[in-house]
């Protein structure tokens, strides 16, 4: 079993799962449709080529929240091209300053091809919305033999920015939220409508997908050993006293 891991980091990202019309919201973590769409674009799969999309959509998907970021609301105006009259106002939401690790599990040959496609994409990748280019190259690693998607998300080093890691320097490890497709035997999963069926321009279609939230513990490379103060508890003396008296 192979897993391809990706780093999704940039000043702004936006991952809509139910965004329509004038209010374009974002989920708090990358969606499967957004990430699979990005990989399909890198591989040069045209919109509407559902046959070539299918194996990509069949990959199992998980994402780890390395740095949650903050939500930004953007106010968007547009003007009519001829009359200059203003068009309906729209709101767009972004995640600022966030870092995620996404993972896709499946056939090794397919994942190796996608890994190569990210290095030389046909259509340049973006983080959910075209105006959000990645700040760093996306591909992290192709884990050729891991036991599970969960394992790959556990093994990948913490990708948060140095300033963010320093804030947690007292912690030798950090606990990161993971949202991944549930295994057959796992229950109590949430559902999200982001399983891509078709990216055809005239009719995008998505199915429901199960999402299970768990956490992983990863080491903090910025952890500084805290100087431990010598133990000082005045009641120790009392205890010693009472021990002697009894």
């Amino acid at each position: 079993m192979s897993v391809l891991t990706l780093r999704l980091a940039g000043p702004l990202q936006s991952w809509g799962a139910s965004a329509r019309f004038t209010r374009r919201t974002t989920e708090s973590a990358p969606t499967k449709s957004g990430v699979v769409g990005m990989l399909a674009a890198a591989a040069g799969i045209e919109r509407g080529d559902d046959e070539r999309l299918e194996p990509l959509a069949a990959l199992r998907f998980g994402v780890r929240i390395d740095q949650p970021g903050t939500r930004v609301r953007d106010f968007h105006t547009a003007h009519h091209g001829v009359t200059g009259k203003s068009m309906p106002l729209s709101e767009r939401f972004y995640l600022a300053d966030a870092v995620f690790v996404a993972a896709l599990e499946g056939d090794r040959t397919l994942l190796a091809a996608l890994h190569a496609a990210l290095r030389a994409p046909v259509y340049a990748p973006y983080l959910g919305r075209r105006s959000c280019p990645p700040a760093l190259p996306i591909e992290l690693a192709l884990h050729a033999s891991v036991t599970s998607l969960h394992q790959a998300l556990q093994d990948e080093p913490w990708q948060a920015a140095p300033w963010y890691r320093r804030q947690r320097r007292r912690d030798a490890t950090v606990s990161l939220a993971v949202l991944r497709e549930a295994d057959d035997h796992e229950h109590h999963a949430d559902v999200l409508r982001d399983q891509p069926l078709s990216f055809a321009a005239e009719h995008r279609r998505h199915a429901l997908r199960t999402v299970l939230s768990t956490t992983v513990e990863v080491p903090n490379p910025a952890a500084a050993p805290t100087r431990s103060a010598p133990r000082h508890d005045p009641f120790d003396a009392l205890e010693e006293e009472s021990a002697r008296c009894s």
Partner: protein
Amino acid sequence: MNRIFLDVHALQTVPPSNLNRDDTGAPKTAVYGGVPRARVSSQAWKRATRTYFKDEHLLDASELGVRTKKIVEAVASRITALDPSLTRETALRIADETVKATGLKTDVPTRKATAAKAAEPDPAPEAKYLVFLSARQLEGLARLAVDGAADITAYLKDKKSKDKAKEIADTRHSVDIALFGRMVADAADINVDAAVQVAHAISVHRVENESDYYTAVDDENTDEETGAGMIGTVDFNSATLYRYAALGVHQLAANLGQGLREDEPRTDPVRRAVEAFVHGFVASLPTGKINTFGHHTLPDAVIVKLRTTRPVSFVAAFEDPVRGDQGGHVREASERLAEYIPDIERAYGDEDSTLTWVLRVGPNTQRLGGIGTESENLGELVASVGQAVAERLEKPA
């Protein structure tokens, strides 16, 4: 597929200004590297770039799109020019059928009562929304209509001619459509995916918005009426922005299709579009509150890269905000870029085929001189980028 990406980076300082504001009137912001930054949205700068093409005549009108509902009339006037023997009514009718064959919907607008009284001719059918078509697409539709003028309905029933109509609307796009894309809700198969990706510009340093309290004097006030005629506040900030855009040249070439004239090489329209984009993106400026703040500035430094792999943004060089202890923010920002660019390109395996150009101003940007071929001026930069693109298209690296 032969991949060619162009990425454009600019450092630009704007004095106190408010070029792109949110619904409260304050300049847009974002958080990056844990601190607040000034932000100018990608939409604002794309609009500025498009407007610049038109205002500065960077491109011939025939290469720009026409955004209109009166598409039937536009095609009809070209039909009568091609075949003057056709009457206006016939031209309108065959134009309407041809436009409909592309998948666009048209309607005859209701006739105004005054127009009926004045015995004006019936209004021409109009598209139900604004349609963005290039001059050569309108021309192509007109030619098709003239070919089938004898019996247009039967002619367009033939699958071959119907497909031709769709193909015309879907190829040889205008330069602005090929660069920035097109979206038509109910004829989705003629949508165009943009070849350009523009990032939101953000400041390389920490920025907090400030507020300017102003009073205005009423000139007609008498000595008894003291005090202001009106008061208010304007929010603003001042920033050194990092601007980034990436252009998929191979995608642009596919969007543009065949050249406008039969006698020119296929690479010419691509080259002109690339040159216009680089020039327009570098030199344009959103005009929000420009008469209040007069923030007319140009970038201090521009870096252009032509690559065979993916485009790369250098915004992470500024994730740790620039402090600007000496020489403003431009000097430190330039130093950061001069160190970061070779670093990230080494780490992720930059190709030998990557070409780099630099255009820079003043001693603060000196460090950037070493990272590529220096251009004397914007014209020279644009011309050498255009030439390299044409060469790559003809002879892939």
